């Protein structure tokens, strides 16, 4: 996805932690996005609601603003790669519902994603292959394409 108008974001200097406020029928919900190193140059992309000085990544807020939230998350991915251009971001769906959702997003937005990022999909738990919108993947490994 290209950069676009999402929610206003606050970021840390390293561009690894981001916060924003979702607004909808359920009121305002404080959200957090974090890129945390796994190993080598691979980072986890985590996302959740701030609750009681902790955060929950396993709830569905249902605040009727999924499109704006997704655009906001996409904006943070762009920001992350601005400072960490040679790194990889891994997106791990937590459950089957999210797996289907994430696959749908990649399928629908592939024309926008493909010119900007290399994407590998995880199949059968331990093999990565080049992303193919016709297939269903268990995880997504993203690298930024060189601008030059």
């Amino acid at each position, binding site marked *: 996805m290209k950069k676009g108008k999402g929610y206003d974001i*606050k970021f840390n200097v390293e561009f690894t932690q981001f916060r924003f406020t979702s607004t909808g029928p359920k009121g305002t919900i404080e959200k957090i996005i974090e890129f945390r*190193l*796994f*190993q080598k140059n*691979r980072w986890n992309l985590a996302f959740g609601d701030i609750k009681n000085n902790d955060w929950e*990544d396993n709830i569905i807020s249902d605040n009727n603003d999924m499109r704006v939230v997704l655009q906001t998350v996409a904006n943070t991915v762009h920001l992350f790669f601005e400072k960490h251009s040679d790194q990889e971001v891994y997106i791990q769906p937590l459950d089957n519902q999210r797996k289907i959702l994430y696959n749908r997003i990649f399928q629908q937005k592939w024309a926008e994603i493909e010119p900007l990022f290399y994407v590998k999909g995880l199949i059968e738990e331990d093999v990565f292959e080049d992303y193919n919108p016709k297939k269903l993947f268990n995880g997504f490994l993203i690298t930024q394409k060189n601008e030059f």
Partner: protein
Amino acid sequence: MKKENDISEASNMSIGASPMTKEDLLQTESVLKNAFFKEKYRTGLKNLVKSDMKLFKKQYPEWQLKDVLVAVIKDFNPELPPAILLEMTQFIIAEWESSSQKEVVAC
């Protein structure tokens, strides 16, 4: 370089991005204190580890469990808490044993 930074800053302002305050940063650190322990992080790391183990096995068929353990663990985030490091070590051992058993059955 300055020009590139200016363009980037302008671009970030257009998407409504601004730096956290000192207070925001402190609160964010506190909120994220359990980030290593979240299921998503642990499951994601396990999937990457499995993928690496498969590659190592293909590249270095002579490697034993200890070689794989050393190669995988040395690349982990150095800030990984001991409890997660232990969980991952146990996971690698279990994966190694499971794949070795499958190979024996296949033979």
